[in-house]
């Protein structure tokens, strides 16, 4: 008995097609699997993913915050959402001070593992 690669890639496609936006926030609280949203989201950073790609059993998404967005904020959390707004993940990182001289880019990957 095995889970087939083609089946895993079918699931990958279902997830891939529905991934829609990224968002950043300012909470440094450690992520937990019961989180449902970012804990301190910055509304202006809820934007369509700047790119997404798929390879064998893998999805990679990118989210960009432009030089005109979220300036003066201390970025500490990030997440990717499906089209209905449900969050798929939540990442917490050391603070990044956002200002108008920089853009900030996030790249995250997901792997469907049947090995």
């Amino acid at each position, binding site marked *: 008995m095995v889970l087939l690669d083609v089946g895993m890639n079918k699931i990958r496609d279902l997830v891939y097609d529905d991934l829609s936006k990224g968002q950043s926030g300012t909470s440094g609280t450690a992520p937990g699997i019961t989180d449902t949203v970012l804990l301190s989201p910055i509304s202006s950073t809820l934007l369509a993913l700047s790119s997404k790609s798929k390879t064998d059993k893998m999805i990679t998404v990118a989210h960009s915050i432009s030089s005109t967005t979220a300036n003066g904020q201390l970025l500490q959390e990030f997440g990717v959402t499906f089209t209905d707004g449900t969050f798929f993940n939540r990442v917490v990182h050391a603070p990044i001070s956002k200002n108008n001289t920089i853009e900030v880019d996030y*790249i995250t990957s997901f792997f469907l593992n049947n090995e």
Partner: protein
Amino acid sequence: MSNFTNLGSNIQQTRDEFGSEADERKIVKIKREIGTIEELSTKITEDMIGNSWIVGSPTNGIVGSNTSTPNGLQQVVGGSGRVITLLRVVNPNNTFKEYFRDTTFKSASTDATWNVTTHLLTFGSGSVAQSEIIATNSEVYSTVLLSMSGTTSSLTPKISFNGGNTFETISANVSYSTATSGTVLAWRLESSTVQEVTSLQIQYS
């Protein structure tokens, strides 16, 4: 009373006619198949806008001569003066995983075959594979545990706590603590014979 006695003997007779309980059972073994969705690394970069002309920017959105850009130069349509800097690489549960499906973390120092089609890292005699930065998050790291799958017995794993400037030799599947902790992790594998890696994982703290 005697009726109850007769009833009891009848039950015993019935049991004897049926015989004893079956002493053989059919056991069905069920193997569970587990598939998981793993969240891998998140890379966060800063892109200094330089003197790129950007609509709506208070410093780079002005038409005409402008010295308010970050580098003090007049803005140019396109990507002029941009500088990209890696700020963070974070991994779930401080565990980096590499499945060789992309080259995001492949260093140019690699001469082993990092094949994203077959998902194999293949070594010949004397070849090496090295990663880019796999973890940095304004934290100090001093302990790692590296594990691999594949044909890896002749590989020499090494770890860098300073982003690939210097490497320390470690043993796979054995927790390693360095005397000189650092904030930026990278890995390196060296081989003296043909070896093949299908996945690699590093836990760190």
